[in-house]
Every structure is written in structure tokens, then in C-alpha cells.
């Protein structure tokens, strides 16, 4: 296919894309509505304390998290005292893990000997279920935020290391030659060429690490904490407050969706140069 026809294909694709959000909703909405209705019906028909009706959970959710005044953006005090710390730890831990992961992954790719030396360690870290390290993280960094941030960073770092190293090593040799022929300074070569060239794999690593981070913050908060969404869920459960537990779980689900959604938004912007031509070829 010539580039000219690719261009036309891109434009056609973009037109299609603009009309598609409604279509997507039309496809996805019915299943969701049916699931919610089934839940609601089943829960009212077979009354069990552990499986409350969907809309009771929604009502509780609203009361727990969205009952604040307008000055607080309608978010409740509980949101500020419990959800915000969770989100903060998650963000700091993930960013720390991502930055360290890109740094270590780059060192591994650029220094083959170091890479060979570190490989068993990276494999070990990759295959170790990070939740198992929680007691150790707490022993080293204590019960406060530091321990959880470290724990999240520790879980998020591995896919980023592997993605970065693989991306840098697997770069197209023609692109690298082309960059070398331009006599770029080492910093420019790395930041403006090598990292963008590796970015598809780096982004894949980051995507996996976002999910790992969301999972780990909850594990950490269920285990030991005095604030946070995980803490809210555990304390509700200990008080036999089933609705409260569900309300926390819903907030977690929402947090996961928002994190992934934000990631996709950023990815679509940053990786535009890769996504648009690829979609045009379909």
C-alpha cells in the first residue's frame, strides 16, 4: 500500500472513530444493564446478608463517598480521609517504581555485563508474588505510608525493567544507525531517540505495572493500616457491615477503571505516532 492510500485510510478511520463512541455504548450497555438487573432481582428474591441488592450498594456508595458539600466537590469526609491516602500512595509508589524501572532497565540494556549479572535477580523478582513480601516491607519500612509506597514500587518495577530493557535492545538497527549518523549528543540520543524507539515495550510494561500497583495497594491496606479504602473494607467487614464492604469494593473497582482509563488516554496521546499509522493499515 502506498503512503497516499494510507493517508486516505487514516482519514477514513478517523471519521469512523468519531462516530464510534455511541456505537460502543450501544454494544456494551445492554449486557451491563442486564447484569445489574439480574443482580438486583436475585438479591431481592433470595435475601442473604452477604449479597445485598445492587441499588442498596449504590445508595450506600453515594452516602459513603459522595455525600460531601459542594466546597469539597461533593466528596465526603470519608473520601478525603480514606480514599485520598490510598490514591496518593498508589500514585507515588507507581511513579517511583516506573522511574526506577526505566532507569534499571536502561542500565541493563546499555551495560550487557550488568544485564547478564542482574538477569537471575530480575527473573526472581518477576516470578516472586509480591504480596508475599508485604511482611518484609513492613518490617523494613514500618506500618506507615513509606512501607506501602515501597511495597507498590517493588511490585510495579519488574514489568517496567523487562519492558525497557527489551525495548532498548530490540530497537530497529536502521533507526539506530540513522540516529548515530546524525551525531546526536548522548543525552539527546537516549532521551529523544532510544527511549521513544523503545516506548511501545516500555508502555506495555507500564500498563502491567499499573494493574499490579492497584492490586498491591489493596493487599497492603487489608493487611495493616489505619486509613485507606482497604482499611475501610476490613473494618466494615469486622463490624458485619456488608453494605459498607461492598461500597468499598465498588470504589476500588472504580479506582481500577479510572487508573486504566487515564493510562489509555495518556498512551493514545504519547503513542499517537505508532497507533495512527498502524490503524490505517488494518
Amino acid at each position, binding site marked *: 500500500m502506498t503512503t497516499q492510500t494510507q*493517508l486516505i485510510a487514516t482519514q477514513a478511520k478517523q471519521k469512523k472513530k468519531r462516530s464510534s463512541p455511541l456505537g460502543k455504548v450501544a454494544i456494551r450497555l445492554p449486557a451491563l444493564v442486564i447484569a445489574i438487573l439480574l443482580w438486583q432481582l436475585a438479591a431481592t428474591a433470595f435475601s442473604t446478608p452477604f449479597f445485598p441488592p445492587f441499588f442498596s450498594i449504590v445508595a450506600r456508595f453515594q452516602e459513603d463517598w459522595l455525600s460531601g458539600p459542594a466546597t469539597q466537590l461533593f466528596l465526603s469526609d470519608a473520601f478525603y480521609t480514606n480514599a485520598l491516602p490510598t490514591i496518593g500512595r498508589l500514585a507515588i509508589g507507581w511513579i517511583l517504581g516506573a522511574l526506577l524501572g526505566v532507569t534499571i532497565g536502561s542500565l541493563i540494556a546499555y551495560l550487557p555485563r550488568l544485564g547478564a549479572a542482574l538477569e537471575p535477580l530480575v527473573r526472581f523478582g518477576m516470578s516472586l508474588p509480591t504480596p508475599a513480601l508485604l511482611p518484609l516491607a513492613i518490617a523494613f519500612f514500618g506500618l506507615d505510608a513509606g512501607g506501602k509506597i515501597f511495597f507498590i514500587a517493588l511490585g510495579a518495577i519488574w514489568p517496567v525493567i523487562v519492558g525497557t530493557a527489551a525495548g532498548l535492545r530490540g530497537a*530497529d538497527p*536502521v*533507526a539506530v*544507525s540513522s540516529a548515530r549518523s546524525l*551525531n*546526536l549528543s548522548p543525552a*539527546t540520543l537516549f532521551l*529523544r531517540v532510544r527511549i521513544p524507539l523503545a516506548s511501545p515495550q516500555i508502555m506495555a510494561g507500564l500498563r502491567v505495572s499499573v494493574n499490579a500497583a492497584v492490586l498491591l495497594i489493596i493487599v497492603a491496606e487489608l493487611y495493616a493500616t489505619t486509613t485507606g479504602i482497604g482499611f475501610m473494607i476490613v473494618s466494615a467487614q469486622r463490624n458485619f457491615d456488608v453494605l459498607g464492604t461492598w461500597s468499598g469494593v465498588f470504589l476500588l473497582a472504580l479506582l481500577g477503571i479510572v487508573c486504566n482509563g487515564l493510562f489509555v488516554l495518556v498512551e493514545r496521546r504519547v503513542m499517537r*505516532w505508532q497507533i495512527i499509522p498502524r490503524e490505517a493499515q488494518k
Partner: protein
Amino acid sequence: MNYVIEVQHLAFRYPNAPQDTLGDIDFAVRQGEFVSVVGPSGAGKTTLLNCISGLTRPTGGAVLVEGEAITAPSSKIGIVFQDYSRSLFPWLTAEKNVALPLRSRGLGAEEIAARVAEALASVGLAGQEKKYPWEMSGGMQQRVAIARALALEPHVLIMDEPMASVDAQTRSDLEDLVLKIWAERGVTVILVTHDIDEAVYMSDRIVILSTPPTAVYHTMEIDLSRPRHQLQTKDTAEFGHLRARLFTEIRELRERSALNA
């Protein structure tokens, strides 16, 4: 004689390969000359270019650029690769692709802007500065790549089959663009091509490479008058003779290597 590029007994062997890819290559290029390099596929033309441009270290011999041995990519040499889709950076617009090496060199913003505009205009891309490579046709992308090399003001422009990935019409446009740039800037050009017509049409001299272990099989002077023209020049009897001679040489070369094999 004033040589810009001197290739002296250049040899290259890939690690663990049974024989040299480049055996003993020896030729020189004069200041302002337009030299094409042709040869059978697998002769190691790209390897030769990489050695001349300092991207690959030869395993024997040397390349002198303006009298100095080259060991790493030099700002005196600009390279245009065959595959523009891999040599341009798709995450940068046309003007940023051209500006990146200038910025890396620490030039002032004004000078960068001026050089970028000049380079893009000289390849006929004024007004296309903000486009990304993937929003452009193949010919336009290759022109961005040429502009990027030109903006660095190289003394030698090395082109590795730059017209091989575009359609015929775009190809002859690009050929004339390269000739125009060569004439206007007085830059020395080394063009690798597998197209006999293109080699004759463009060059002052053609270097014909043998099969591996590669050496210079023959060189051919092309004394067609300049400026050349796609129709008139190619219509002359001289062009036909030169074309036939080059064709014969390459066929002989192939037959000879088939006998040896």
C-alpha cells in the same frame, strides 16, 4: 588531486563469517564529484557505506575523509538511508526531525529555525513543516530525510538507494532534486543504486563492485553534459552507449562469478 573521500584497501568480515564481505576496496572521490556505486546484490554496498560513514569499523584498510581517518560518524558526512520509514523519527514532525541534530549540536534557536526552514524549502517542503512522517507520501518523507542531512551542512552526502522505495514518477522527481541540490551546494555525493539508468543519468563516475570478497571491478567515467534532463539526456546516443556498456559490464561480472562459484 583534491580527494574528499579516500577508501584504502578497505576490508570487512562479519564475525564468524567464512570469508570477507568486502575484500579489498580502493577508490577515491574528488571534491564536488557525483559518484555512483553499483554492484550485484550481496556485494556489501550498504556495508561499504557504513564503513565510509563511520557507522561500522572496517576489519582492514582505512577510509580518509578530507585526509583524516574516520573511526566514528562525522559531521562532515550526511547519510540518507533507503528506508525513510525507519530512518525518520515518526514521533517528531518534519521540522523537528530536521531540528533534532541541530539542537543537539547546541546551535541557537534562531539559527536552528533558519536552517530548518532553508533545508525544508530547498527540498520543496515549505508549508509541510508541522506534518508527521506518517502523514506524508513516501517521496515527501525521503525529502525530509534529505533535508535533515542537508541542514547539518555536510561536505559529503552519502545516499543508500534513496529512490528504491518510491514509485517511478516520484523517483525521477527525487533524482532531479538531488542533482539540483548537488549543483547548488557543491556537496560531494556518493550514491548507491541498483538502477543502471539512474547511475548513468546522475553520475560523473560509476564505481562497479564485484561479488564478495568485494573489490572494485571497474570504474566508468560518465561525460554526459550537464545540466542533465530526464528526457533529453536519456534520449541521446551517448546515454544509450553508456547504459549498454554498464549493463554489459555487470552481466560479465555476474557470469564470471557464476563460473567461479
